């Protein structure tokens, strides 16, 4: 009886094995399952994230990533820029966004606004944006990333910038993870791309008073734009995502005015054990190029928040 059951299961096991061995799509994330070659007892990944594999061919998994809006906000502040509340997309506008694409885009926009307000210790403003982000997350079916417990923790620590930064970072990590897990990578892409656009929009306000270091950092974002485009192009292209990426072509065009020279990268080990990495590319952009970037970013951002 048991042997018969195993024979009947063979086509399924064979198909499963073939499916996993041949790649099943293109990411290693898809590989998991039963060992059909020897024993049939094991297979499911245990709670620690391990299982016997059925896969025979090795692969190279490519991860794509981009610096977070929190990093961009931190960079803006360190460059000597000031907080401009008038540049933010109003937190009250969240209920204007009714499609999942628009909700994801403005989740990215609000995420960057929230990061900016939090880094500049505008804590009351941060709470307003967290509330709007909670509403948009609910609309997208990922409300648990901002549970009531998290909101309570925010309220209890509303004057502690470091804790707020941790909470915001964890929230957007969880959001990215959940959207990917739910098979909504396109929405994760919209969040990342619009978040970068908003971060750049905030960095390029009031340029007439901007310190030189900020202009330098804006020029260096040429590399980050490359990260963002690479990340978003690795996802399945829905009309909304491909439209947003196409519109960002104008920003790429503006960035073509940024020049770079490269020296050899260097590494030095500090007494603390950490390393310092220097050298590499140096970017330069004249004022006209920075203004062109700012203008292109503003156009894309205006379309995002409509």
């Amino acid at each position: 009886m048991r042997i018969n059951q195993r024979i009947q299961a063979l086509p399924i096991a064979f198909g499963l094995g073939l499916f996993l061995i041949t790649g099943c799509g293109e990411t290693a994330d898809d590989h998991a399952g039963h060992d059909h070659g020897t024993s049939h007892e094991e297979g499911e990944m245990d709670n620690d994230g391990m299982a016997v594999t059925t896969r025979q061919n090795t692969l190279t998994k490519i991860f794509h990533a981009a610096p977070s809006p929190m990093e961009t906000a931190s960079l803006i502040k360190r460059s000597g820029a000031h907080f401009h509340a008038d540049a933010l997309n109003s937190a009250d506008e969240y209920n204007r966004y009714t499609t999942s694409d628009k909700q994801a885009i403005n989740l990215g926009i609000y995420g960057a606004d929230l990061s900016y307000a939090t880094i500049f210790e505008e804590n009351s403003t941060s709470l307003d944006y967290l509330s709007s982000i909670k509403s948009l997350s609910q609309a997208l079916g990922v409300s648990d990333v901002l549970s009531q417990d998290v909101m309570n923790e925010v309220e209890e620590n509303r004057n502690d910038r470091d804790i707020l930064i941790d909470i915001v970072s964890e929230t957007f990590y969880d959001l990215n993870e959940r959207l990917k897990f739910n098979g909504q990578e396109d929405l994760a892409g919209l969040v990342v791309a619009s978040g970068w656009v908003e971060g750049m929009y905030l960095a390029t306000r009031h340029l007439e008073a901007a310190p030189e270091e900020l202009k330098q950092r804006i020029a260096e974002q040429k590399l980050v734009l490359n990260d963002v485009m690479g990340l978003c192009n690795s996802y399945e292209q829905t009309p909304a995502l491909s439209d947003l990426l196409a519109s960002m072509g104008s920003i790429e065009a503006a960035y073509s005015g940024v020049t770079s020279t490269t020296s050899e990268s260097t590494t030095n080990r500090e007494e603390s054990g950490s390393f310092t990495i220097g050298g590499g590319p140096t970017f330069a952009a004249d004022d006209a190029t920075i203004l062109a970037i700012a203008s292109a970013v503003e156009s894309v951002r205006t379309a995002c928040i409509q």
Partner: protein
Amino acid sequence: MKHTIILLLTLGLFATTADAQCRSFTKKNCLTELEGYIQNDNYNSAILIPGDEAQLMLTFLAGQEYRLLVCSHPVLGDVTYEIFDAKGKRLFDSRKNEPDVSYVDFNMETTQQLQVQVHVPETRSAIMHEGCVTVLVGSKS
């Protein structure tokens, strides 16, 4: 037809379960190592087997301190990693510098795009295991 439906349902279930276990593994074993750092938003986790590699290309910003963490299930053995600059010059090799530590801390003097290469060692074991590998990046000013 019946077998095809069962197969598809089984595949979906396994993929979802494995993904969920990997998320749980990352939360439980990896994220705590980034305490004191602002974690990057991107979830980069995969189920790998011996001999697999993973690559991450990311821009690291001038003036920031970073922690790069390669977190893997012990069943995969000593997973190693290297950091290269955009021209392919190796800047860091965990086998030489930090054999017992799954993370490296570094400061960036300049903004650079770096590539992280992760290697899962081969095994001679008859039964080959797969396990989660997660690459996390944290930063602070």
